[in-house]
């Protein structure tokens, strides 16, 4: 053991946190209790320990009472441990001779009975004091931060974050990985955006081009991140480029190969148009695609499927860019920070069978309607019925899949607004009578309510009530050959039956289907609804529990484009602050071996997934490579003789805490 430090002179600071703690815990009594603990020479209470005056309080007390160890009893260490460690080190004490006791999230917010809450707070502080008494000074290890950044997802969030990062011109590369053939994400599918009715591609395409030509951005389109290892500042990333069967450097997007393809007519469903429009085996997802390069779908192309084709596309290509033997290739690179912007997937309307999606004709999801309204869409911007006629009446059903105990309980935030937008566009393009069926019209953003008012003034009909069913069983002559929307109009007080020609389902937003794999690869966690979990809902919305990895946009939860872009900017700035600092502090919780006790039994070596422990043949003992050790402590618990221990979580410290809490 190290030489015993000088006698502990501990200061305990108990926070009221306004009424958050004071309201339940008898703070004065707790302070009196703490003052009497062995080693404690000073204890006091303050309204807000984390505030500047609170922090100065600590510094003053350290000088006045010659404190050499500090305990702060307040909120969760995940929030302010770093803050107080900085304060303690500024006061001249090693930052690891500090301990934080959670009496807010751990006590006052989760306990009703005041007496029991105070007793619990006291016993946690007792444990904290016993622990800090035995804590040893440590130095946080600092590691250089690689300036490169990985951005996963090339939608509006990923693009905005990449541009913000690249424009910082830190001489670093932004690796933007997009698994679709083109960046643009779901926004590229929209015709207009609310509430300004800006044309989506008008505000998106310039950004896409900017990403394409930006020297600091390396775009990995039609690629996926395969593995991520390492830690903040030093992530090792492997990216797989899926084969386009086109040499990207040569293809200039002249599209001659498409005309030349043996398939004269486009017969394969185009994913970008959700299958509503067709494409050939060799195709480009949509005209403004970036990169403007074609690709070949191996499931449709005759040669790739059956190995026999005249390969007219190759003859047509002047650049000789087509390479039918192309294989996926993997590239490994190092980055310091990661921004996850993988977006959302729409709710599958088939899970509400009573709305007839996929069964009744002319029932479409909102995203499909966006394609109909888009000039590059299957009907060049004018929604049509399956028999080619313009619809005279259209019903838009809100909250499909959202705010529903049987599917998703949460509100998807954007559907009311985009439904109003769709209503406006449908009226404008077809002159149809539009009915919106809503439960609550949610128009929270800037200019949103005004947009709703404008729609009402344009004659939009809104009916308040959850739609029960869409059926084609007509009861009256007027209903014949129509889709009948049955809903209880809760304002009028009776059940209505509205015959319409077309139904649009305002489907909610859900996490991407492969969120679980992504989460495991990046060591993140998910909320109950399945969206990626932020570090703190209010104070750290774009950070995650894993340092150096940030999230932005719909992957963190349903949100509209303004909020998505704001989060993208926030995530970029969080990454930039790490890059600017250039170094990042790694918690010194690494394993440490006592060579007098280590018998060389090698039990610990097998415990470590990071191969941080090696065997020294001469000394016949093990040694720890500190830079590789992540500080989990698994080896310390497995060590049969206690030779291996974990700094800041040594046996004595945990035993002291146990004694304190009982």
């Amino acid at each position, binding site marked *: 053991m190290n030489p015993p430090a000088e006698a502990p002179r501990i200061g305990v600071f108990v926070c009221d946190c306004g009424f958050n703690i004071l309201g339940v815990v008898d703070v004065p009594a707790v302070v009196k209790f703490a003052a009497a603990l062995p080693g404690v020479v000073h204890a006091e209470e303050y309204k807000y320990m984390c505030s500047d005056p609170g922090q100065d309080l600590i510094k003053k007390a350290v000088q006045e009472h010659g404190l050499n160890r500090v305990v702060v009893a307040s909120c969760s260490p995940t929030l302010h441990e770093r803050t107080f460690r900085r304060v303690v080190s500024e006061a001249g004490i090693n930052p690891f001779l500090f301990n934080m006791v959670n009496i807010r999230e751990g006590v006052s917010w989760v306990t009703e009975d005041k007496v029991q809450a105070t007793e619990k707070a006291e016993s946690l502080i007792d444990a904290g004091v016993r622990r800090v008494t035995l804590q040893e000074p440590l130095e946080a290890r600092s590691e250089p931060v690689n300036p490169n950044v990985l951005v996963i997802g090339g939608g509006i969030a990923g693009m905005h974050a990449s541009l913000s990062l690249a424009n910082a011109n830190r001489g670093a590369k932004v690796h933007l990985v997009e698994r679709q053939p083109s960046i643009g994400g779901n926004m590229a599918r929209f015709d207009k955006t609310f509430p300004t009715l800006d044309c989506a591609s008008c505000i998106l395409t310039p950004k896409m081009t900017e990403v394409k030509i930006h020297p600091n951005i390396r775009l990995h389109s039609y690629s996926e991140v395969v593995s991520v290892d390492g830690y903040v500042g030093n992530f090792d990333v492997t990216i797989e480029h899926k084969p386009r069967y086109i040499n990207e450097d040569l293809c200039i997007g002249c599209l001659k190969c498409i005309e030349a393809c043996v398939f004269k007519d486009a017969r394969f469903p185009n994913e970008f148009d959700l299958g509503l429009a067709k494409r050939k085996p060799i195709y480009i997802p949509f005209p403004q695609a970036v990169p403007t390069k074609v690709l070949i779908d191996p499931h449709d192309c005759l040669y790739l499927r059956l190995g026999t084709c005249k390969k007219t596309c190759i003859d047509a290509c002047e650049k000789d860019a087509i390479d039918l033997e192309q294989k996926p290739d993997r590239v490994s690179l190092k980055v310091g920070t990661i921004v996850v912007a993988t977006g959302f997937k729409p709710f599958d309307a088939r899970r509400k069978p009573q709305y007839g999606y996929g069964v009744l004709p002319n029932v479409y999801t909102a995203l499909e309607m966006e394609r109909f309204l888009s000039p590059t869409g299957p009907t060049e911007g004018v929604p049509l019925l399956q028999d080619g006629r313009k619809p005279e009446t259209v019903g838009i059903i809100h909250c499909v899949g959202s705010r529903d105990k049987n599917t998703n309980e949460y509100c998807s935030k954007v559907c009311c607004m985009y439904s109003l937008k769709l209503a406006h566009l449908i009226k404008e393009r077809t002159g149809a009578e539009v009915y919106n069926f809503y439960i609550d019209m949610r128009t929270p953003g800037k200019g949103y309510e005004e947009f709703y008012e404008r729609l009402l003034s344009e004659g939009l009909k809104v009916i308040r009530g959850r739609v029960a069913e869409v059926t084609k069983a007509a009861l009256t002559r007027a209903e014949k050959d129509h889709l009948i929307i049955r809903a209880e109009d809760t304002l009028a007080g009776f059940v209505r039956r509205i015959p319409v020609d077309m139904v649009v389902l305002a489907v909610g937003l859900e996490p991407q289907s492969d969120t679980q794999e992504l989460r495991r690869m990046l060591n993140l966690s998910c909320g109950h609804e399945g969206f990626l979990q932020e570090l703190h809902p209010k104070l750290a919305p774009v950070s995650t529990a894993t340092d150096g990895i940030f999230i932005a946009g719909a992957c963190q939860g349903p949100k509209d484009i303004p909020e998505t872009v704001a989060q993208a900017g926030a995530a970029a700035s969080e990454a930039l602050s790490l890059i600017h600092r250039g170094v990042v502090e790694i918690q010194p919780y690494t394993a440490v071996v006592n060579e007098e006790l280590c018998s060389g039994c090698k*039990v610990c070596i097998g415990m470590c997934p990071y191969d941080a422990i090696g065997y020294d043949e001469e000394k016949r003992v093990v040694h720890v490579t500190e830079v590789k050790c992540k500080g989990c402590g698994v080896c310390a618990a*497995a060590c049969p*003789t206690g030779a291996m221990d974990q700094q800041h979580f040594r046996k004595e410290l945990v035993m002291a805490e146990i004694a304190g809490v009982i």
Partner: protein
Amino acid sequence: MAEKPKVALYWCASCGGCEEAVVDLAEAILDVVAAVDIVFWPVALDFKVSDVEALPDKAIAVSFINGAVRLSEQKEMVELLRRKSQLVVAFGSCSHLGGIPGLANLWDKASIFDWSYSKAPSMEPGATTRPMTKIQVPEGELELPEFWDTVKSLNQVIDVDYYLPGCPPTPKLIANAVQAILTGKLPPKGAVLAGTKALCSECDLNETKPDKLLIQDIKRVTEVQLDLKKCYLAQGVLCMGPVTRSGCEALCINGGMPCTGCFGPVQESPDYGGKALSFVASIVDLEDPARAQEVLAKVADPTGIFYRYSLPTSKLGRKKMPRRK
């Protein structure tokens, strides 16, 4: 001629193996006998308790006491020897840690008597006789020592100066201890007179261990043809080497049997069973819960195996008996 230092040997709840170990010194016993004056050794010499009581306090240079303490009479004897001796050495696993008799702490007096004096197959059905501490017989009052619920190690009854671990301690270890005592070159009080590291540091088979010591299955010694040149643990046989103090020069392992942990834990981690359980469960490298349960079930009696010698000195010390109706 300077007076030869007086030595006493006594045995409490023990199997007599430790007495054997002293005799195992073979010729070396002659040097010992030449150097010391054995004043009390019930198993071998006919001295009486009164002889010891007659000695002035601290007259005995060193008492080697083996066996756990389980009867009131043993408590009296060890307290007497403590008064009469300058040094007391806990000799062997029983006095050092509680030993095999210590496993009786999984029961208590009532359940032990209930089995031994009624339910055991050797007893006629319905037998209800029980040993009594006092009984009047025509000739007078007969006494028996009191039988405790809990077996104790020596240092739980009297203050102990040094510990000679092992079941039994190896002759070499005993000789070294006697030598050290005679020459006065002794480590600080309370030391265990053996190695300070775990057995693997002393075992020749440790080099054959793969760097990552991970096993997929557990096998009993009878289930596998052990390769005597390779670490047994790496072959899936439970060997307590990693958690057991060294000093025996891997006697059992050189004899083809895995270590069972009689030298007890090293200084740093006093609770042997908790550490043994942790390292065994950690190196069984199975992630599927059902498969892991299936393999770990082969550790048929975790408490018995991991606390084979040290239950009385473990953190919990004994079983908490259920409340009788």
